[in-house]
C-alpha cells in the first residue's frame, strides 16, 4: 500500500511537470503575434468578433482602467460614463482605478491570464513598452480618421513606433516653475524676477544657499528629456543610431555636475526621485519646484503656508525652447474582444467635451485642438493654481511629451540614468559618461531593433 501511494505521488508529480512543459510548448508555438502591427493572432480573431457584434444588438461591458483618479475625480469619471452609457444603449462601462505603480503589472498579468481590459489609461512610456510586445491595438489601422483628427498631431504621434500609433493622447501637464516667495526674500532676491534661463537658476541657487543655507531646487531625474531640450538628438530620426555624445550634451552634463560639485543641489536628489523633490518643496526646504501645475493642488492640501507663499512663472528653457510635458494616454489592448466599441469609448473619454470638463476640475490641459481654444484657459485669477493654468496653457505650443518612439525605450533610459548618476557621484567624467552611455545604449538599441 505504501509503495502504491508513493507511486501515485510520483505519477502525480510527473503529470504536473509534463503539464507545465506542455503549457510552455503551447506558449512557444501557440501564439501568432504580428509585432509590427500590434495584433496578436487571438486579438485579431477577437477583433472580427467585435466587428460582428457591432452590427448585432449590443450588450457589451467595457472594462476601463485608469491611473490614480479615484477618489478625487470619481464624480467626473462617473458622470462621463453615465453620459456615454445613455448615448450608447447596450454599452456598459466598468471602471477600475489603479495606482500608478500597479497598473502596468496588473495589465500584463491580466493579459497573461487571457482576460484583458478594453480601455486603459497609460503614460507614453508604458504604452510604448506594451506596444512593443504586440499588446496594443494600432489605432492608425483601426480608428477612423475622424477619431484621430481631433488631437494635436504631435501629441498623437507620441506613442508611435514605425508608423503605428498605439494611444489616443489624453491630458497633458506642461511644466511650470513654482517658487517660494519667503525663501526668495530671505535670500535677498526679487520674488518678482524669477530665473528665465538655466544660468540664472544657478545664480539664484548660489545666492539662496549662501544666504539661507537652503537648496534652491532639485534637478529632475528625466535626464533624457533634459538632453533633448538641450538640443541633443539622443535617438536619430531613423531610430537606428544613438546620438548622445555631442558638444551640447557635454555642456549640459558639465553644468549639472557643477551643481552637485558646488553643493548647490542636494545629493539625495540622485536617488530621491520626484516624490523627494515635491516633499522638500512642501516642507519649505527648497525654493523652486519644476513640475506640472496639477501638483499645486497637493501643495495646497499638504502645506497651506507654503502654498500661500508660492509664486508661478514660466519654466526656464534650454536651447530648444521646448517644455517637457508628460502626457497621459488611453490605449486599447489587442486582447480586448470589442475593439470597435473600445476605440469609440477611448475616443469619447478623450474628446473635446470630456477633456474640457476635466480641465475645469483639475489643472491639466487638453490634447485636443478645439478644447485647447476654450477661453477658460486664458482666464486668470489671483491664486497660484489659476495663474499656473494660464502660464501652462500659453506654453502648450512648446510643450512636448519627449519619447524616443522605439520599443523598450525604458531600458535605454535606464542605461542613461545609471551612467549619469555615476557622473554625479564623481565616478566618471562627463566626457566618459557620454561616451559610455552612447556605446551601451547603441548596443541595446541594436538588440531592440533586431528583435522587433
Amino acid at each position, binding site marked *: 500500500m505504501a509503495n502504491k501511494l508513493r507511486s501515485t505521488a510520483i505519477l502525480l508529480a510527473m503529470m504536473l511537470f509534463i503539464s507545465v512543459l506542455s503549457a510552455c510548448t503551447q506558449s512557444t508555438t501557440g501564439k501568432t*503575434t504580428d509585432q509590427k502591427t500590434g495584433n496578436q493572432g487571438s486579438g485579431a480573431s477577437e477583433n472580427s468578433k467585435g466587428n460582428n457584434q457591432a452590427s448585432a444588438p449590443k450588450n457589451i461591458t467595457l472594462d476601463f482602467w485608469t491611473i490614480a483618479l479615484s477618489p478625487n475625480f470619481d464624480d467626473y469619471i462617473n458622470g462621463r460614463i453615465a453620459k456615454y452609457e445613455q448615448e450608447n444603449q447596450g454599452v456598459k462601462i466598468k471602471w477600475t482605478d489603479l495606482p500608478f505603480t500597479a497598473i502596468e503589472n496588473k495589465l500584463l498579468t491580466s493579459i497573461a491570464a487571457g482576460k484583458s481590459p478594453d480601455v486603459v489609461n497609460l503614460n507614453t512610456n508604458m504604452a510604448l513598452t506594451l506596444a512593443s510586445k504586440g499588446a496594443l491595438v494600432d489605432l492608425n489601422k483601426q480608428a477612423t480618421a475622424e477619431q484621430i483628427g481631433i488631437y494635436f498631431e504631435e501629441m498623437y504621434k507620441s506613442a508611435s513606433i514605425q508608423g503605428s500609433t498605439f494611444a489616443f493622447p489624453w491630458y497633458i501637464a506642461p511644466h511650470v516653475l513654482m517658487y517660494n516667495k519667503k525663501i526668495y526674500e530671505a535670500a535677498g532676491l526679487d520674488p518678482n524676477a524669477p530665473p528665465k534661463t538655466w544660468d540664472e537658476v544657478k545664480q539664484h541657487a548660489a545666492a539662496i544657499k549662501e544666504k539661507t543655507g537652503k537648496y534652491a531646487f532639485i534637478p529632475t531625474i528625466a535626464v533624457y528629456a533634459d538632453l533633448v531640450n538641450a538640443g541633443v538628438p539622443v535617438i536619430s530620426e531613423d531610430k537606428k543610431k544613438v546620438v548622445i555624445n555631442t558638444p551640447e550634451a557635454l555642456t549640459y552634463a558639465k553644468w549639472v555636475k557643477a551643481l552637485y560639485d558646488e553643493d548647490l543641489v542636494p545629493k539625495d536628489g540622485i536617488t530621491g526621485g520626484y516624490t523627494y523633490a515635491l516633499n522638500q518643496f512642501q516642507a519649505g526646504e527648497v525654493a523652486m519646484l519644476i513640475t506640472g501645475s496639477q501638483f499645486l493642488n497637493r501643495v495646497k492640501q499638504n502645506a497651506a503656508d507654503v502654498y500661500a507663499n508660492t509664486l508661478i512663472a514660466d519654466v526656464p528653457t534650454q536651447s530648444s525652447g521646448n517644455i517637457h510635458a508628460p502626457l497621459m494616454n488611453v490605449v486599447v489592448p489587442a486582447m480586448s474582444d470589442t475593439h470597435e466599441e473600445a476605440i469609440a469609448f477611448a475616443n469619447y473619454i478623450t474628446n473635446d467635451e470630456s477633456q474640457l470638463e476635466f480641465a475645469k476640475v483639475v489643472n491639466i490641459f487638453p490634447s485636443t485642438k478645439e478644447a485647447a481654444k476654450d477661453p477658460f484657459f486664458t482666464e486668470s485669477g489671483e491664486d497660484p493654481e489659476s495663474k499656473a493654468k494660464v502660464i501652462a496653457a500659453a506654453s502648450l505650443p512648446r510643450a512636448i511629451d519627449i519619447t524616443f518612439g522605439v520599443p523598450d525605450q525604458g531600458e535605454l533610459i535606464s542605461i542613461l540614468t545609471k551612467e549619469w548618476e555615476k557622473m554625479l557621484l564623481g565616478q566618471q567624467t562627463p566626457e566618459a559618461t557620454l561616451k559610455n552611455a552612447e556605446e551601451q545604449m547603441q548596443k541595446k538599441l541594436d538588440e531592440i531593433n533586431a528583435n522587433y
Partner: protein
Amino acid sequence: MLNTRNRRYLFAYLMMAPGLLLMAIFTFYPIIYGLPLTFTNYSVIGETKWIGLANFKRAFSDPDFLLALKNSILYIIVVPVIQILSICMAILVNNNLKGVRFFRVSYFVPVVTSMVAAAIAWKWMFEQKGIINFILESAGITNGNIAWLANPDTALYAVMFVTVWKGLGYYMMIYLAGLQSIPSELQEAAKIDGANRAQVIRHVTIPLLQPFVLLCSLLSVMSAIRVFDEVYIMTGGGPAHASMVTGVYTYVKAFQDFDFGYAAAIGLIVSLIVMLFSIILFKYGKKGGLNYYG
C-alpha cells in the same frame, strides 16, 4: 482490507492532503513552471521561444547582475551582526530584571512593523537633513550633511542597518525561547563548579543554543540573499546600482523590462546559491544542543 500500518499511512496522507494541495498550487507549481521558463525568452505577452542556456550565459556576462550578486553576497555580513546582537539581547531580557517586559516588547515592535512603513521612515531619517545627520552633527561626530542613501559608499550599509534593526527582535524571540528551554540545572551545576557568569554563558548557554543558532543563521542567510523591500524602497538599487541586489534586479528585469525568462534564470541562480550556503551551514553548524546530531 487495509492493515493497521497502511491505515495509518492513509490517515497521515489524508491529513496532509489539504496543505499539500495548497503547497502544490502556490509553491510547487510556480517553482516547476519557472524552471522551463529559464530556457525561454518568455515575456508574458508576445511570442515565446526556446533559447536554451542563453539566459544563463547572459547572466554571467551581465555586469549589472554580477554587481547585484556581489552586493547580495556582501549582504550576508548582516547575519553575524544580527545573530550576535540578538543572542546578547535574548540573554539580557531572559533575566528577571525590573521592566524587562517593556524591553521585550520594545525590541519586538520593529518585527511587527510593516517593512514598507519602516523603510520609508528610515529613508526620511537618512536624508541629508534627516535626524541621523542631526544627531551625528550635534554629537560632533560628523561635519556636514552626509547623503547616506545617495552615496555609493554608504547606501548599501545604511539599508543593511535597517535590516538588522528590523530583524533583531524576531531572532531575539527565537533565542529567548531557546534559552528558556535550557534546563536551569545545567547552569546551576556550572555555577556550583565555580564558573562565573561569562563562563556559564560561554561554556554552557551558547553551546546549548547551537541548534537555534543554526536555525536563525539559516533563516537570516536566506533572507539576506533574497532581500528586496528595504532596498527597493530606500534606494531602488541606486545610486548608479551601488546598492543593487539580486532581488531588486530580478524585479526590474521581470516587472519593468518584462524579461521574465531572464528573471527566472536569475532567480534560479540565486536559489542555487542560497542552497549552497544552506548546505555549508548544515555541514558546519549542526553540533551542539542538548542532543548532538552525531
